[in-house]
């Protein structure tokens, strides 16, 4: 594509895009009563009402959900992935937190 043509075209595209990007929302779906909401994906929407509506159309076209939550992606605070080991290994060496640690009662019923 020639340079002049290209730049003219880019102008038009930016104009149409309106210099504005809708915020990103994380979508959580409860698939049936009695189950937790589970992360389904994300989408862009101008506000919370539209985000819920878009989430319904995008993630529940086949009755995959009975309830939808949307959360602004920017409002989610996550643990630091680099700190994986140090942050999550505190359970290591604490086998006594699990029932399987207690073997002496083997054979005793209802225990």
């Amino acid at each position, binding site marked *: 594509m020639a340079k002049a043509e290209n730049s003219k075209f880019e102008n038009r595209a930016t104009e149409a895009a309106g210099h504005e990007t809708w915020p990103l929302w994380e979508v959580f779906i409860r698939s049936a009563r009695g189950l937790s909401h589970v992360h389904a994906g994300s989408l862009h929407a101008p506000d919370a009402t539209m985000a819920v509506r878009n989430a319904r159309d995008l993630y529940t076209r086949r009755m995959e959900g009975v309830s939808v939550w949307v959360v602004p992606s920017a409002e989610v*605070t996550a643990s630091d992935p680099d700190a994986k080991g140090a942050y999550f290994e505190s359970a290591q060496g604490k086998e006594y937190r699990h029932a399987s640690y207690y073997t002496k009662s083997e054979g005793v019923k209802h225990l």
Partner: protein
Amino acid sequence: MTVSEPRTPHAVSAVTDAGEGTDEERALFESVIADDKRIEPRDWMPSAYRRTLVRQMSQHAHSEIIGMQPEANWITRAPSLKRKAILMAKVQDEAGHGLYLYSATETLGTGRDVLNDQLIQGKARYSSIFNYPAPTWADMGAIGWLVDGAAIVNQVPLCRASFGPYARAMVRICKEESFHQRQGFEILLELMQGTQAQQEMAQDAVNRWFAPSLMMFGPPDAESTNSAQSMAWNIKRFSNDELRQRFVDMLVPQAEVLGITFPDPELAWNEERGHYDFGELDWDEFAEVLAGRGPCNAQRLQRRRDAHNDGAWVREAAAAYARKTAGRAVEGAAA
């Protein structure tokens, strides 16, 4: 753990290129791949891995979006209310597939607006199959059966791709695709049970879509440049030729049920290989269409651009409304 992380629009999900990585980070990446586990967006990953995924996933998303056009053209002309409803549901699914994939691509740090601009400015690729015309109702059958059929063969192994968000999007997509393939098959079956003119229309559509659908798996293995690295990264699981063979082996018995033939004189069962042999494909045509010189490239891109521009006022109005109501909420709280 750091006290607080930057709350960018992608704070939960996306981290952009994190450079060379430490020895530890590289080792973790290698071990996740070696154990056939999943890489998640905030993990360190080689920049070439990220680039490969952004390219492949966004091309895939663009294909779903452009892929709506040949079928959307037929919604108003579908022969019955039932077929209209089915076609609308299918086209809506394809829009959904595009959006699942864009949202998965965004977790790699490339925004939707950037991806959309690449598409409408003609800088991005999408599957060359959608640059062929769909002139008859039977094309709706051939597209569902052959094009969605080939897409399924391609996509099922991607449900195990090493990048978590991509694999999860593919699981969702694959669940929806089998309806697409079946409704196409059924259209052809009904036409093949109809008048002679209807049978000829079905055969003609299959004649036109057969070779292009086989080319959807990409160039022959010997010429496929990115394949080896993608296989090593567990993004790709089978080679182009393996998948193409699988597709042909699947199609032949289905064509027998339809009573339809394929326009390939070399198509024959090979006892020794345990597979169907088929003729050489026209890779020059493939290259031409991919380079933008196919029958409908310009039309498809223009339609996409027009839709984007025609929708601008809706996006702007929704954003203005959101700003206004957010402003009111703040005023209300202050009062």
